[in-house]
């Protein structure tokens, strides 16, 4: 069996023994590394202390969301999944292919106002204005026993456009507009609510991980949208992110062309006193936008207080005037035409293609299960973990680097061994430098030796090897979808 990298030609003679290889940054490893950046002192024996001292504590923010120390000395854990390419009788292969192109009728329904779908699988879902009650934690320490909440102001949410990538629920945008979508030139601003990034992406709480995997598998968009949208709009917001409002109004000067924005920036104190009788004279005197910019909490307090005095019409007019802002403020993109929102997806479509790998195996196996004429040998989905250590982790600080630097030939011996001795109860431990490997039987009672070995190689601060495996499996189950972007590489080997 010979090995080759991605997108290269394979010799016809090699085709029979070709495999799809999927190399993942191990989620467990990512999370552990990330967690230890803030609390490694709790684990005095963890080798990160060495890493920190050698690289000036420089943290590299992996664009996929993980944090890695930019050092050559951190041992790194990878997992490698291997599956065979389709093989079977002509009739069965074509039949399965057809079944996948013409699937059984899908009972799921789209959300009622799905306004645009891209071939990449993104859905643009609109919703008319509605009112919400502000549910915002203003205490900084999220672990405090007596976290405080902002006054539950009632504000109008304008027309929203949710951009949903069902392959990756961490990639959800909520955009605001004063009107329903009618043209590619319509302008949207990002959500002005807390936990919204400047490009409209939403920073979700971990509760989304409870979303039923079954429904995600079925791509029940109505269900997924409902969960995601309600999850965000029901609040539980915090002050983690810079308020978009703050960015928008940093340099804005009230103008006659924008009467509602002027009203927003020049509060009607009489109206405020009437609506909030408990506001003291001093509070009213100090209530202005400039004074509110001293903290994220006060920006949102100003925003929600003012918005709560606006009628629906005034709220929509507010966002209409926002849409007339220049599309860039201080080199930051702040408003987007609908066409720009679509084009952003096109640029990122590669990520979607990669994540579609997950659907692939489950779809094929679904069909296999439904059609007794096809036995399991039709599609040999084999997956076994290979833990690779002794890797120069400088090259692993992003998926881009991993794609280019990970030498698949190091897997040669491991693959050969696995194909000759297939077993689901083994973990391969591969020394990347020497290409030598050992095999751990995970069914066997785990001895201290195995754990010590692993600990010495990857420095995982687990109580036992079993607890590491359990933790890792648990993480994979929880992060299978939300961290799908860390799926890095498929190659023909």
């Amino acid at each position, binding site marked *: 069996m010979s090995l080759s990298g991605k997108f290269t030609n394979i010799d016809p003679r090699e*085709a029979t023994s070709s495999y799809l290889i999927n190399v993942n940054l191990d989620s467990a490893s990512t999370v552990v590394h990330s967690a230890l950046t803030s609390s490694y002192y709790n684990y005095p024996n963890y080798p990160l202390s060495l890493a920190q001292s050698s690289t000036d504590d420089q943290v590299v923010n992996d664009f996929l969301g993980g944090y890695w120390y930019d050092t050559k000395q951190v041992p790194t854990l990878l997992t490698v999944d291997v599956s065979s390419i*389709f093989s079977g009788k*002509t009739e069965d292969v074509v039949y399965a292919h057809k079944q*996948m192109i013409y699937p059984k009728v899908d*009972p799921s329904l789209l959300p009622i106002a*799905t306004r645009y*779908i891209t071939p990449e699988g993104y859905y643009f879902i609109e919703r008319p204005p509605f009112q919400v009650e502000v549910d915002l934690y203003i205490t900084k320490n999220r672990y405090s026993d007596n976290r405080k909440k902002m006054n539950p102001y009632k504000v109008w949410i304008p027309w929203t456009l949710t951009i949903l990538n069902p392959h990756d629920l961490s990639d959800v945008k909520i955009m605001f507009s004063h009107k329903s979508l009618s043209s590619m030139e319509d302008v949207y601003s990002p959500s002005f609510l807390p936990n919204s990034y400047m490009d409209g992406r939403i920073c979700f709480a971990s509760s989304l991980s409870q979303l039923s995997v079954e429904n995600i598998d079925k791509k029940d968009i109505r269900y997924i949208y409902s969960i995601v949208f309600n999850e965000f709009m029901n609040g539980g917001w915090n002050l983690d992110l810079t308020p978009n409002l703050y960015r928008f109004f940093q340099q804005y000067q009230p103008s006659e062309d924008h009467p509602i924005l002027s009203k927003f920036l020049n509060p009607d104190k009489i109206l405020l006193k009437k609506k909030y009788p408990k506001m003291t004279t001093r509070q009213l005197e100090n209530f202005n936008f400039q004074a509110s910019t001293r903290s994220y909490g006060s920006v949102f307090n100003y925003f929600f207080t003012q918005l709560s005095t606006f009628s629906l019409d005034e709220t929509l007019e507010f966002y209409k005037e926002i849409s007339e802002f220049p599309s860039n403020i201080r080199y930051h993109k702040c408003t987007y035409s609908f066409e720009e929102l679509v084009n952003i997806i096109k640029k990122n479509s590669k990520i979607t293609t990669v994540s579609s790998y997950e*659907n*692939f195996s489950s*779809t094929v196996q679904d069909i296999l299960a439904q059609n007794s004429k096809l036995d399991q040998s039709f599609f040999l989905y084999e997956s076994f973990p290979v833990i690779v250590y002794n890797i120069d982790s400088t090259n692993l600080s992003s998926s881009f680097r991993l794609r280019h630097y990970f030498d698949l030939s190091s897997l040669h011996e491991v693959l050969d061994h696995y194909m000759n001795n297939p077993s689901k109860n083994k973990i391969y431990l591969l020394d990347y430098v020497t290409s030598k490997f050992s095999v751990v039987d995970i069914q066997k009672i785990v001895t201290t030796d195995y754990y010590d070995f692993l600990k010495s190689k990857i420095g995982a601060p687990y109580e036992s090897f079993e607890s590491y495996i359990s933790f890792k499996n648990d993480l994979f189950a929880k992060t299978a979808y939300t961290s799908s972007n860390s799926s890095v590489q498929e190659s023909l080997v």
Partner: protein
Amino acid sequence: MAISILTSNANNVSVKVNYNQDSSYISSFVYNNYSNDLQQIAGELDRVVPVTDFVSSFTKNNYIVKDTGIMPPGLLYATKKYLVFEKPPCYENVSIIYKQVDNIDYDCDEESIYRIPLPWQLYIVKYHEIKNENQIEYYTTDVRMYFMKTSLMHPDQEMFMVPIPNFYSNGDLCRPFFSDMDDVEKYSKDFAGVIQSAYDWVWNSGTNLDLTETVAKYYSFYQDKPENTILEKFAVPFTHEIGKENYYIGDSYVAALFKAWESIDLHEISNINWVKNSQNPRFYSDFSNARTNLIGEYLQSIDQSSQTHRNLDCCDSCSEYDDEQDEYINSEDCECECHIPETPIDYDALYAFAGVWPPKGFTYLEALASFMQEDSEISHYSLLRHIRNIEDQVLMS
């Protein structure tokens, strides 16, 4: 012979064929989704497409091959060939010429127009993709429509038949005639265009008396129980009787129904009762199928022997042929089953046994599946044929 798919996308399948132990053969095939053809296009494969293409071809959400364009609200389902949308209650004009199409003189015959309130409507549309100068364009090819009590909330929600001419009783719309290509080309070539043209096919293409079975069935189903139906709104109570097997009904009945329908307010329309659909395009076919295929089972179910499979050949031996009368005359002592006096068949009971009357109708999911089924039945046959052809070609090469 084993075949491995090396690469594939929605239309192209590249395969490797092992036709003996020592050598293999790699070929490429085009899989045509519309004709369901699998055609060999190249002998040797000189380039392997990225595996991601192969993988993405199996991804359920990749059926839509281009951006949909901005769509009106109400889309419920969308795949590469079908889409489903709903419309809320509204008023629409129905324009009808009270003649069958062959007898219509469009210069002389006048249209009658009725403004009727509609309940929630569900449209299932089949569309076709055409590649035109590297642009993929969508065209509507078939439309189905149902009435609903509410917006579609669940896949098992009941659908109801539309009692308007030119609908088949399973919900299919008889395709309209177009006066020129502009009637086809004037729509945008995206989902919005497909949705608009489907809506226009139903409401802005006129209708006539070619297909009136749905109207006939509305009468026959509710004539004895007109409460909460259009029949209740007749100025003069409806007293005629329309047989349940009637598949055609005259202009006066159609006109009377529309006239009464016009008198209903929009806010009332969601409470009006409708009839469920037939399983076949026509109730007529449902009844015929029941008589042909299920009568034996029905008679068995009521402990009667089947009279549909009588062995008429027995008459050769137990009867005498009367040349003058040109028929067999039974022997007096004949005891063949075929000469047992016939039991009169209760057709109402047979139709109830067969589930065709009162009609079972469709849930949303059943309606969608039955619409899609028409394609897959044909394709399965042609697919197998093409697989055999490919195998032959490979073996002979």
